[in-house]
């Protein structure tokens, strides 16, 4: 739903792994899921550190 986030003016947007499991993926093993979650969270941290001037989407998985 990143276009909605862009439209309402959220400045730092990280696409997650799906509506029903934004920070997971039921097709992966628990370890792989956690690794995926970590990657997305780390991307979020990177986004927080990045200066932006307008709604910015920080790349997909």
């Amino acid at each position, binding site marked *: 739903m990143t276009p909605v986030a862009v439209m309402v003016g959220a400045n730092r947007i990280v696409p997650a792994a799906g509506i029903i499991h934004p*920070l997971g993926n*039921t097709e992966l093993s628990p370890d792989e899921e956690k690794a995926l979650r970590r990657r997305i969270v780390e991307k979020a941290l990177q986004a927080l550190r990045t200066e932006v001037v307008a709604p910015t989407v920080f790349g997909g998985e």
Partner: protein
Amino acid sequence: MKSLRVVCYLNQFFGQLGGEDKAGVGPQAVKGAVGPARAVEQALGGAGTVVATVRCGDNYVAEQTDKAVAELLALVAAERPDLVIAGPAFLAGRYGVACGALCAAVQAKLGIPAVTGMHGENPGVDLYRRQVYIVETGAEAGRMLAEVGRLVALGLKLVRGEPLGTPAVEGYFARGMTRHIVAERNAAERAVAMLSAKLAGRPFASEVPLPDFPRIPAPRLLKTLEGATIALVTDGGLVPQGNPDGIEPLNATRYGAYSIEGKAGLDAGQYDNVHRGYDTTYVKQDPHRLVPVDVARELEEQGAIGKLHETVYSTTGVATTLAHSARMGREIAEKLRQAGVDAVILTST
């Protein structure tokens, strides 16, 4: 037809009490029409009489709005009016806000129709256009008679229960509210006609106005991540078992604050999910798929972030109104700021 009883509201200046020096004057009523209320009486013609003019200082209303409005309501009610006309306030901001607040209260609490008027940039417009019919006026009293005429005409229609024309026709600010009508053609036919017009370069009228969200300047993180406190927030509907705060599954107006102090992660057995807009099976099985406490805690232990804030904030983001979303966001942000949080990761579905 019986002659209507009309009450007018004016501020200290238009009510002829004085200028800024009288802006602190309290609510009072005089019989008959004073100042611009005479123009109202003229516009009413034989349809009604201005039985009283209620006046108040702009600062008195601005500094204690609820109390002032309650006092003004009592004065208005005592006159048993059929219609209340406030202003016009033109560009006077405190006056416009007072007019809007009074009209809204007269409608809501007394059930009496009310109308006001002001310039488009008067803050009273944005605040009250949804609840109150606000006629558009100029910036100053230059064309007062004509503008008062429009206020009175609109007021009379409201009192008589006559159908109103569009905002453009009646001269009031579009209230930004929708209502249903039954069109002659079905939506598909209208869409084909609209597309044909668009392709041919002919004018057409879209049935949905384009949204207009204010730009929010992006804050900068003033610390390094290693020194920052990060909080986790979600609109994915996470709640503790039993939903103790009664967070609504739809149209949420509430959010919860849930402690993760000392927790390495979220135990699925202690949490539930009330969101109605997506299949919550997977996030119930493992709440970390929504709120990444496990990973955030590890990042904290490894020093990648300074601290994981001990409270998670949660609400449901399905069919939440813009007004409540903005309010909840502001409230949560204020709490986080007071707690020394530097940044937030918000998970949305």
